[in-house]
């Protein structure tokens, strides 16, 4: 099962890549996709995730051809916080 995985912002820097295409033979959920790409690092509690550009949860099921993204809390909008 082909899954495109993307990383953004500080996570992209930490993973030292923007993303990776994987053959997720055993991964059925986002959490399992994370396990496959993160080299054993547990899923950070504050990490956000999306499947095909919709917010999703760790136990959301992935399907062949999906784009899965992992990223830190968002900080858009003005500089007014």
């Amino acid at each position, binding site marked *: 099962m082909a899954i495109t995985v*993307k990383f*953004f*912002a*500080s996570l992209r820097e930490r993973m030292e890549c923007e993303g990776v295409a994987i053959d997720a033979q055993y991964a059925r959920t986002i959490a399992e996709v994370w396990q496959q790409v993160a080299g054993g690092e547990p899923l950070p509690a504050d990490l*956000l995730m*999306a499947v095909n*550009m*919709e*917010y999703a949860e760790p136990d959301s099921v992935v399907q062949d051809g999906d784009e899965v*993204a992992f*990223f*830190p*809390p*968002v*900080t*858009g*909008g*003005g*500089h*007014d*916080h």
Partner: protein
Amino acid sequence: MTIEIRAGAFDPWRELADFQQQMTGKCGKYGATTVFVGTMRDFNEGDEVRGMFLEHYPQMTEKYLEKITLEAAQRWELLDMLIIHRVGEILPDDPIVLVAAWTVHRAAAFEAARYLIEELKSRSPFWKKEWLPERERWVIKNTPAG
């Protein structure tokens, strides 16, 4: 209803003038317009900030902003909405974000503009990396409604 992600600087007042000029069928129909502009400051959390890089998730960002404008359109009677958000390299005093809502009544204009900016800040996939004099840092989180 227009949503734009911009890689270059923009003048919010110019954008509003241009946008409103194209709202020809709505002339005389709206009584209230509320606009919010978020601007880059030269300080944050006590530190001097010399600039920043605003990263986003192409397509998902646009999709998410569309979602919140549709939600706003269901909650309030809106004649039009405009959202412009900057990405890429940004300098102090540059506008980062513009949201605007046109309505018949002023309460709806204020509430819808506030809703759009709060939803944008809390959930739309943008990330800021600030350039301090000696180092760079990712902004960790937006404070809620502060």
